[in-house]
């Protein structure tokens, strides 16, 4: 059980801090539909429970209740406008160095834009990590030698909108898929594909493509560059602008750091 302000256990990346992500930025779907960098981040109570499962599967159910204020996602106009999050996770080691992680999350809270409307988020995520048997000379910042690793998530956000003075619900969908491959002890290459609707206009769709190169000079530092191409919807369907961006990140470690969520 946890109590306090925390990042909600919603999806795969919401609980992960920026420096621990396999990319410099967050996926477009996170920015468009789940509040950007902060995501669902609120004060509340979280209960997790192991669920017995056969054949070496690890299953965990998490239920969380929040105050209901999370940036521009949820807003509590009244004391009873609580936010709720549920997460079911299934994990299994396929071998000593390969594992499969599946999950489904559900979040519900009072709409930040409409005081009498509730909003619901649903996400499915899946990731597969395949490790290569590391040699003794491979001490890097990450203990498990992540070679091919793939993450994928699909998110749906039905949202109330006002159209001709009548409340309607629009369903915005988003997804990303990414993969990374560790070439040797110091270099990793990766890529990510994003496609997502807008929260306020589900018929507007953004598409993104990223290439990521990571270098570890030592176990205490990390240098990462990311090229990001965005095909971004502007104001109306069929109206797009292209964005070419280069992101750079330098991380260094000072002192012991607690384990990141796996």
């Amino acid at each position, binding site marked *: 059980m946890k109590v306090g302000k925390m990042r909600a256990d919603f999806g795969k990346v919401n609980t992960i801090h920026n420096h621990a992500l396999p990319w410099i930025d967050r996926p477009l779907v996170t920015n468009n539909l789940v509040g950007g960098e902060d995501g669902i981040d609120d004060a509340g109570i979280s209960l*997790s*429970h*192991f*669920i*017995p499962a056969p054949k*070496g599967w*690890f*299953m*965990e*159910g998490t*239920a969380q209740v929040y105050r209901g204020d999370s940036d521009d996602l949820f807003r509590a106009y009244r004391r009873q406008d609580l936010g709720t999050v*549920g997460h*079911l*996770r299934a*994990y*299994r*080691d396929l071998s*000593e160095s390969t*594992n499969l992680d599946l999950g489904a999350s*559900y979040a519900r809270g009072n709409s930040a834009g409409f005081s009498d409307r509730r909003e*619901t988020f*649903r996400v499915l995520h899946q990731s597969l990590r395949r490790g290569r*048997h*590391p*040699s*003794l000379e491979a*001490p*890097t*910042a*990450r*203990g*498990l030698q992540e070679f091919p690793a793939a993450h994928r998530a699909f998110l749906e956000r039905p949202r109330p909108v006002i159209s001709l003075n009548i409340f309607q619900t629009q369903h915005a969908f988003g997804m990303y898929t990414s993969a990374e491959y560790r070439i040797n002890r110091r270099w990793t290459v990766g890529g990510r594909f994003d496609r997502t609707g807008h929260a306020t206009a589900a018929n507007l769709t953004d598409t993104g493509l990223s290439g990521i190169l990571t270098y570890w000079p030592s*176990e*205490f530092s990390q240098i990462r560059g990311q090229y990001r191409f965005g095909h971004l919807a502007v104001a109306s369907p069929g109206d797009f602008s292209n964005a070419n961006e280069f992101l750079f990140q330098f991380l260094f470690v*000072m*002192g*012991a*750091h*607690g*384990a*990141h969520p*796996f």
Partner: protein
Amino acid sequence: MQRCSLTTRLAAIFAALAFTISLLGPPPARAASKIQIMTATTDLASLAQEVGGDKVEVESIARGYQDPHFVDAKPSFLLKLKHADLLIVVGLELEIGWLPPLINQSTNPKIQVGAPGYLDASRFARILEIPTGQVTRSEGDVHPLGNPHYWLDPENGLRIAKGIADKLSEMRPGDAAVLRATLYRFRAASEAGRPKVARGDEAIRGPENCHLPPFLAEFCRTLSLERSRLR
């Protein structure tokens, strides 16, 4: 009154089913008569297996090829820790980056820090390079409680083995005599291996200043080598 949507109902039914299964499900199969031991490293696992013999089942979290400073806290470890009777750690903050959350999330009261099933092996070892005075990050990667690679000293290995045997005897008083006998055999076998180390010592002793990384302090001390630190 607002009607619940189908998805909300399905989610509620699914959650209720999962909770019910978690309450009704049988515990995982295990060898009831054996003490389930988890260790942080394979070195400790080897010592526990030598001492415990057929009275214990031992598994290590970190593998021998992994750097024990950096181990991913995989959920599968939680399952193993949840059913452990005894957790043996290196201590001195060697596993500080990954083990504490595993212990907490395992929800196993027996192996929480300070509980009877939590055994810090550094308590039994002679520790080198304990910093004196103020320790700061300007000195680089310093272990403020001393060099945690103490198991590389065979004498410390024997001390740890005795500590494990004492703990197992405390947990299973009925097996105390068997454990004492196993420890005696292990100690005798270790003593018998000493001449080999001595021959290696003669071969290695050549250079007076041995350029080895800091974590080999115990190794150098055992072989009477003078070590130059590599930074």
